[in-house]
């Protein structure tokens, strides 16, 4: 992420015309011999230019050693600037500025661009370039030796994220292993979750009161993990509702979510053996505008007075609006979201709240399918690995000042 930001900054810098010191530069070039020309600083040494790794072949990394007058010597170097040309012995006018002024103390610059051939940032792939570095003082500059040729190349594996790859592998192995164990019929324990245990009771209450059950899937898209978890819960809730023969209301914010929810609910009614009770209009679209949706749902609540409200999925500022309206009409409310900012409002205003990961696990609780239980077990093991890693990392840092483990997690983008 940081690197991405850096690249963005660099690209912005490259995009803008470089007015700084431009005057000084050209003035120096024109009046090549003036009497009181200040003494130039020592040039930057040991310049290297290599293909920037782990990218799409549109960047070259330039490094150099600080001018002897940067932090030592005359100490008057205020910064560096990178120049690029297409030939080693190109005339000064053919060298283009590859960077803005980089602050003193800098020893690395990544010159990057994009693949748009007519664009201002075009950066040719597989093409020979030459680089040199200027050390600048307030009124003069010096030039390093030229390096090159160097080419920017496509890379086919991002070495910066190897540890992500390893963790993906570890996680797949854990999941597959525990799913196998679970399939063999081994009993796997899961701790009780209050919100889930209340589901049956809540729907039962709606039945007794002869009032509908309201299920809100949140503002997420059909592909958001919170929404997918919510579909799984909806499928169980709809089945119970069908068995108890109470009405179900599912107003939707996202059209795609609506289509999936319709399929899910219809299938649940079939499973319950009551396909004819399914009302096509019970799962409906309201609007894709956040507060208009909320206004609609609030209106529905106060008119239909559902006995039980489920808010499971992704929520934003509307969380408290829904939960307080629900409390106003005296519904039992079960909420769950992975949006940290909204959890406080659900916790305060609802009867039960599934916090973050609990929402994802809830469908497993409701179905108790061994395969899904296996995935929960795998998740817990991954968590144990994390706890172990944190402890080990801190210990290592305390004892031998090892920063290795920290660097593992600081993968680059």
């Amino acid at each position, binding site marked *: 992420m940081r690197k991405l930001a850096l690249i963005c900054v660099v690209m912005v810098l490259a995009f803008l015309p470089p007015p*700084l010191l431009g005057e000084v530069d050209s003035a120096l070039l024109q009046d090549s011999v003036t009497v009181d020309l200040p003494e130039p600083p020592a040039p930057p040494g040991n310049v290297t230019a290599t293909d920037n790794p782990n990218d799409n072949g549109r960047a070259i990394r330039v490094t150099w050693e600080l001018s002897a007058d940067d932090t030592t010597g005359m100490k008057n170097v205020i*910064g560096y600037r990178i120049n690029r040309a297409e030939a080693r012995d190109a005339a000064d006018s053919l060298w283009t500025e590859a960077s803005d002024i980089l602050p003193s103390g800098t020893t690395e610059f990544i010159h990057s661009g994009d693949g748009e051939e007519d664009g201002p940032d075009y950066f040719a792939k597989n093409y020979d370039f030459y680089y040199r570095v200027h050390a600048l003082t307030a009124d003069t500059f010096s030039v390093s030796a030229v390096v090159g040729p160097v080419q920017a190349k496509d890379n086919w594996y991002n070495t910066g994220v190897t540890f992500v790859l390893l963790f993906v592998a570890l996680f797949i192995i854990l999941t597959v292993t525990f799913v196998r164990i679970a399939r063999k019929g081994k009993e796997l324990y899961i701790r009780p979750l209050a919100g889930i245990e209340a589901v049956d009771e809540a729907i039962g209450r709606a039945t007794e009161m002869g009032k509908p059950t309201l299920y809100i899937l949140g503002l997420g898209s059909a592909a958001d993990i919170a929404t997918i978890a919510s579909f799984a819960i909806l499928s169980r809730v709809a089945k119970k509702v069908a068995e108890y023969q109470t009405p179900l209301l599912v107003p939707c914010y996202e059209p795609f979510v609506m289509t999936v929810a319709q399929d899910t609910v219809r299938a649940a009614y079939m499973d319950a053996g009551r396909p004819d009770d399914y009302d096509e209009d019970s799962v409906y679209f309201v609007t894709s505008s956040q507060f208009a949706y909320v206004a609609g749902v609030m209106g529905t609540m106060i008119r239909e007075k559902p006995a039980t409200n489920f808010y499971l999925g992704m929520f934003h500022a509307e969380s408290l609006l829904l939960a307080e309206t629900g409390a106003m009409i005296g519904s039992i409310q079960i909420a769950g979201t992975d949006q940290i900012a909204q959890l406080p409002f659900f916790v305060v205003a609802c009867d039960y709240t599934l916090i973050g990961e609990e929402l994802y696990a809830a469908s497993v609780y409701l179905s108790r399918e061994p395969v899904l239980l296996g995935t929960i077990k795998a998740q817990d093991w991954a968590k144990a690995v994390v706890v172990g890693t944190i402890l080990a990392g801190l210990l290592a840092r305390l004892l031998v000042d090892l920063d290795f483990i920290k660097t593992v997690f600081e993968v680059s983008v």
Partner: protein
Amino acid sequence: MSVGLITSVVFIGGGVLWILVQSVKGRDVDRRWIFLFIGSTVALALLFHIRFGEKATPIVKAAFNQIENLPEGASVLIAFDYDPAMEPEVGPMADCFIRHTLARKHKLFLMTLWATGQALMTNTVEDVLKPEFPEAEYGTDYVNLGYKVGGFGVINVVLSDFRAMYPTDAHGTLLDSLPMFNKVRSLRDIDLIISIGGGTPGVKEWVLFAGNRGNIPIVGGTAAVVAPLLYPYYPRQLVGLLGGTKGAAEYESELTGNYDRFKDMDTPALRMMGPQTMAHVVVMAFIIIGNIAYFRSRKREGK
């Protein structure tokens, strides 16, 4: 004591008392009373322009004193590192700082590291500086350096030389022709940096790249969201900090209280804090009343 304040206090006091009595008696207060009550609290505060003498907390007072105690003619740099979205929160701070520094006859250097800050800075100069301080002369008393690309890199460069980054000011005048720059070559010649902003680069970057390296005192003004992250820098790396509307209001109140010429100045932050304070008092009163009622009812059930 204005009529408005008395009306509001009577209203709020009476309302809270009534809800308290109802709750203690074990009656459920209909939430519509709660709604009506919080709504009218805010409405009354707005209607009667209620403000509270926000007494400056030490962290804001420290910022105020820093400017107050600089010798006359000191060089102060104000960085406008924010965008229109943050303007309601930090804009009032910028106005205050400009008023205060110019009233103390300090030399003012204005600059921004945000492209969006340029227009806001110009607005502040046109709306506050020029009309209120017609005697301040451009180039002698204040200068507008404008915006330069480069983020915190700009700080690095001006730490060693202003002219390297700013051959000219925002209007294209050569720095050398401005009297203010006779004595000032780099950031190290500045006596105080005031950084106003809520993002990156912002207060934190000024602290890390200018304050720490150049040993220059820094006062920060920032959005409420960011303020907690900056508290740890006070008092060593930040000599004072204004957090959000609240901090701005405290500074406004300090300024109006200490300077006669600012008695009637516009105080948007203080105006905003009136309804805020009253609403917070009411919400907290609700929490307390709710708990009193709860414990009463538990006691009753216990019997």
